[in-house]
């Protein structure tokens, strides 16, 4: 059956973005390469979805260098954590309603 999407966050419609947020809510921060390894995705795919989350101000980005290699750390903002929590709540409510 089709379900209503009114409480669902548009930003989390994509699976990968939801996965990124779930990693960032339980970890203080995570770097780009580790996220890539964990989620088994390509550079470009990951980068574009991280950009989208950054645009919503759901995550913050901290760039630095380790030796000569760029090291980019991502962490969830307060706004992002709240949005993620709401989205999860909506998913759980949905399951409860259907029981």
């Amino acid at each position, binding site marked *: *059956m*089709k*379900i209503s*999407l009114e409480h669902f966050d548009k930003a989390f419609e994509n*699976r990968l973005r*939801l*996965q990124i947020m*779930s*990693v960032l*809510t*339980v*970890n203080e*921060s*995570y*770097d780009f390469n*580790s996220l890539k*390894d*964990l*989620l088994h995705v390509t550079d470009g795919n990951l980068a574009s979805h991280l950009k989208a989350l950054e645009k919503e101000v759901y995550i913050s980005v901290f760039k630095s260098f380790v030796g000569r290699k760029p090291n980019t750390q991502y962490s969830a903002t307060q706004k992002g954590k709240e949005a993620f929590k709401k989205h*999860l709540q909506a*998913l*759980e409510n*949905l*399951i409860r309603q*259907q029981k």
Partner: protein
Amino acid sequence: MKEKDVYAELSSIRNLMERSSKFISLSGLAGVLAGIYALAGAGLGYVFVKNISTLEGAESYLNEPMIFWPLFMIALAVLVCSIVTACWLTIIKARSRGESVWNPVSRRLLTATGVPLVTGGLFIIILLMKGEYDLIASGCLIFYGLALFSGSHYTYVDIKWLGIFQILLGLLALVVPVYGLILWAIGFGILHIVYGSIMHIKYER
């Protein structure tokens, strides 16, 4: 979106949260083997001391270089064998799960356990230099227990209890230093074997 999809989504989120924040490639078998090494080491040390010491009061035997160095080498061998086994089995397990050993969680785990472990190591070296042998068994147990406790946030929760038991044994060894070696053998030997078996049965089958 179908109901089935929602379930799949939720369980994949839960799985990711777990996987990204806890290092679960630690091997229970490594714990069992470390326990066996520790028991073998303690047994060997005990036999050695018994054969050499002339039973003139057990308190001063460690001051003899003839006894001190072999004991020190046994302890070092146990430590090195345990670390090598643990690293080796962990790497194998991580590979078989298709995960990298070196990731943000394992780094955090190493930092959390590293600080108490290095402090404990230095503490024991200083005790050795000062000839305060009574406190060594309890020092090993207490600092190791603290390391496990602080590392348990980044791996299986069971490790927290192992840490607490080691700390309690360490405090007990401080109260009755005469039983230091026995308590050390219980902590590093028997508890490791028990916990390693529990983890192996619980998570690796």
